[in-house]
């Protein structure tokens, strides 16, 4: 099966600083991948690069069938990034924000999903046509309402300005945007951060539901217990590169596909690195 994400030695710069120093990674469809690493290791940069925001200086990157080196703009409609910042407009209500984001991605999204429907797998195809049906008949209000309800924002909070929300509520609103868009690839940067216990459970549920609906999820998190329960696979990011780490789930096969940096990982154990 063609992987949803396929990276080979990707180098990405910010001015002179290498955010990513040679990342190699494969992610299959319907996988939930957890990015783990110290602060400044490159997790956020990796997510941003996957969403096409960061130009790629060297290497090759295929995401959702798009070659990011050639065109990193059109891939954005098919994925959603939940970043550190909330991408919400302060002066608009939660509902306005979700509606806007939904309609912004909908025009192209509807076309794309129609094309997708023809060659999607059975499970996904059924779901896609159901989503399409909803999209076709309404202007997305339905999708927005569903997402808001799911995130517990359907009541009074729905018509509250984002500037008046607490940090946790803002986070929920940002997640509602992602949920409403129903992207094929979810890129989440610290999804559990800033949420209370019920919020975290909710995020886990949403991620699993999305996976069952055919989406692929890559998320970065410092909360190792939570994350390792949720994820199929954990990937260590350090020094702008990626080192595969097998999940402790029984029967999971460790991935040893000649990844750059893997020898370094072995060297690191008990060896004095200058």
């Amino acid at each position, binding site marked *: 099966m063609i992987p949803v994400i396929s990276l080979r030695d990707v180098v990405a710069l910010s001015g002179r600083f290498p955010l990513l120093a040679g990342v190699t990674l494969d992610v299959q469809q319907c996988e939930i991948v957890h990015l783990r690493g110290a602060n400044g290791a490159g997790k956020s940069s990796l997510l*941003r690069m996957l*969403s096409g*925001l960061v130009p790629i200086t060297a290497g090759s990157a295929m995401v959702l069938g798009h070659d990011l080196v050639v065109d990193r*703009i059109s891939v*954005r*409609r098919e994925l*959603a*990034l939940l*970043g550190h*910042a*909330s*991408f*919400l*407009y*302060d*002066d*608009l209500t939660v509902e*306005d924000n979700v509606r*806007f*984001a939904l*309609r*912004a*991605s909908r*025009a*192209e*999204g509807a076309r794309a999903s129609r094309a997708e429907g023809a060659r999607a797998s059975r499970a996904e195809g059924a779901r896609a046509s159901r989503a399409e049906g909803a999209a076709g008949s309404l202007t997305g209000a339905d999708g927005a309402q569903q997402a808001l309800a799911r995130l517990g924002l359907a009541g009074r909070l729905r018509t509250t*300005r984002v500037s008046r929300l607490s940090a946790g509520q803002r986070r929920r609103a940002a997640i509602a945007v992602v949920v409403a868009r129903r992207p094929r690839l979810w890129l989440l940067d610290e999804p559990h951060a800033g949420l209370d216990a019920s919020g975290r459970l909710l995020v886990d549920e949403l991620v699993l539901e999305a996976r069952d609906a055919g989406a692929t999820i890559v998320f970065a998190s410092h909360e190792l217990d939570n994350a390792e329960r949720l994820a199929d696979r954990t990937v260590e990011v350090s020094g702008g590169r990626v080192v595969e780490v097998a999940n402790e789930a029984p029967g999971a096969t460790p991935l040893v596909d000649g990844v750059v940096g893997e020898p370094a990982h072995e060297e690191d154990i008990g060896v004095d690195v200058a």
Partner: protein
Amino acid sequence: MLRDALLVAGKDLRIELRSRVAIGQVVPFALVVLLLFGLALGPSVGRGSVLYSAAAGLFWIAVLLATVLGVQRSFSIEAVDGASDGLRLSGLDPAGIFLGKAAAIGCELLVLELILALASALLYDRPLTGAVLLLATCAVATVGLVAIGTLYGAVSLGARQRETLLPLLFFPMVAPLLLAATKSWEEAYGTSGHQGTGWLDVLAVFAVAYLAIGTVAFGPLLEDA
């Protein structure tokens, strides 16, 4: 593209309605500018005074200054939380974003011009003759102004040495617009020797040209924030 433009314009105008920055900050600023001109060039008004003969030019300079503020405001909306990424991630067509933002700023500008025109008529004791030409000039000149403003607004989006870049880039490019608009207003006033809408036609050419350039160049510039 047009659909995206309407979406963005609607969003921007809705934000303006809720936050009232343009009406609450930019319009007063422009009025202050008119006042300051009066202080610098007055105090005599009426025929023969400096303020009288310069009224059209002073009006348009105030409009230009206000445009810069309006553009900065329009783009600072997108950069809340330090994230100018939101717009790029939204999946909207960049040309549509450009037209939508330009349209929103344009609407705000038109309202401002109306207020300023009345104010300048009062302050500089200059009746607004030839109202049709005045209005037409405002409309067309505004198109050109917001086109260039929005285009360069994309360059000045985001932090890192960029906020002060906008006026420097904007003013040289709109100098011809300033010239044409002022002369067109003076034709409306009836003070220029030349009759007719010649300058208005010139303005129209600029407006179309700048709009076209902006639509094409905005996308790549937005990427580089």
